[in-house]
């Protein structure tokens, strides 16, 4: 079954983000990894790179297609999940845990970002427009 944990926020472009002590952790949602199918390469960004909200920060190649991860807010990349270089399949196996992609330090820690909660995101993935297959 598709998983929609309640401790993260979701973007329209299928990232999740979780506020943690050292910054904001970002990954690809379970729905997105399933749509992308078996991931075989993850192209990670460089550490300390500054990114704007909505900027592409990583690309993921699957057997079938390529997918992108966009920054949910403006900030600096303070950690990348190096494990994905050897085990890209972690994104498929544990998208909200071991398969996280980057950690960002937000420019403005107080910034309120307009994102979806689990219920809203789930509704989005179940909407007819998202049933199209690539």
């Amino acid at each position, binding site marked *: 079954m598709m998983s929609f944990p309640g401790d993260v926020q979701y973007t329209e472009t299928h990232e999740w983000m979780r506020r943690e002590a050292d910054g904001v952790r970002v990954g690809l949602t379970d729905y997105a990894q*399933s749509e992308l*199918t*078996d991931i*075989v*390469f993850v*192209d990670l960004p460089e550490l300390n790179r500054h990114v704007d909200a909505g900027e592409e920060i990583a*690309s993921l*190649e*699957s*057997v*079938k297609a*390529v997918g992108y991860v966009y920054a949910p807010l403006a900030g600096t990349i303070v950690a990348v999940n190096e494990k994905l270089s050897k085990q890209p*399949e972690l994104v*498929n196996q544990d998208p909200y845990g071991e398969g996280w992609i980057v950690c960002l330090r937000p420019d403005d820690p107080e910034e309120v970002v307009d994102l979806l909660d689990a219920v809203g995101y789930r509704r989005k993935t179940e909407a007819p427009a998202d049933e199209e*297959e690539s």
Partner: protein
Amino acid sequence: MRESPLASVHHAAGARLVEFAGWRLPLQFSSIAEEATTCRKAAALFDISHMGVLVLRGDDAARATRRVLTKEVTAIPDGCGAYALLCNDSGCIRDDLIVMVESPTCVALVANAINHDKNVAWLREHIAGLAVALEDFRGRNFAVALQGPRAEEILRVVADGDPPEHFATFRRMTVAGLPLAVSRTGYTGEDGFELFGEAEHGPALWQALLDTGLGLVPAGLAARDVLRQEMGYPLWGQDLDENTTPLDAGLKWAVDWTGDFVGRAALERAQVTRRRVGFVLEEPGVARSGAIILRGDTAVGRVASGTYSHNLGAAIGQGYVDLAANAEPGHEVEIEVRGRRIKGRIAKLPLLPAKTRMSWAKARRKA
């Protein structure tokens, strides 16, 4: 959208479905990697009910088929088949298919779903005036492919009698109590069978095969695409089209020059300027259809199909390169993917050794 006769089974299995050539079919059941690797180690079962089955019946059946195919159909023995091409008037490939000769008066074609309507119209036009009738089985039959080193062992558990022995032969058999046509063919490079029967019998046959418990897994179109690319088998619409001749595509072996056929005259005059080659990437990334192939700073071709192979542990594919580039297996190339150049090498196809049985044609030559 056409539903497979096996739709209920796929739904129950939780398969992820995809639209392909107007059909809704399973893309994957578990993971693409697992399905593609299990097919080479044990066996995998594919729903290929979308494949167009056309039967030509009548005194002129073999002669009529020969008229539109590159293959000398009249020389194929009863119960045997061959890979053949349907060319247009320019000698380019309208479709690629398997032709099966039951007798000189009954010939079956198994062709690509995407070309079905086009094929039916073309055949009707070209058989007009001959003693032959065309029967279209679309929607009336199911078809599944049982592929892998354990395919024969699995089939024997549920079949009455022996399966067809040589590659590209077929026979009518009772399998799981159901009347089927079984051919020793496939699109994976493994030994295996393709089984055809009445639509309503599909779910029972599918379940009976999976119930043998011999390591067989259901697999989807995504794994099938990976497996065919590992073998360098072309897919019409990606690697073959109406602007590509059999000579460009390296399919000269599928052309018999013994008689006349549509496109022959043009094909005799055709200039070959490019050829189909395989490649394996040596750096991270996947090169897909349309990506440019370079030698040094010179663009020498384009990728037609590309994917990642878990069986080989590398991104692979095939494409067309200019003949003048003299691209030989082992040569280094670079492929441009989203502005980045990825190093790879031209590779001999197939990328993995074929495990198919000896064909009837080869067995005859040996005898």
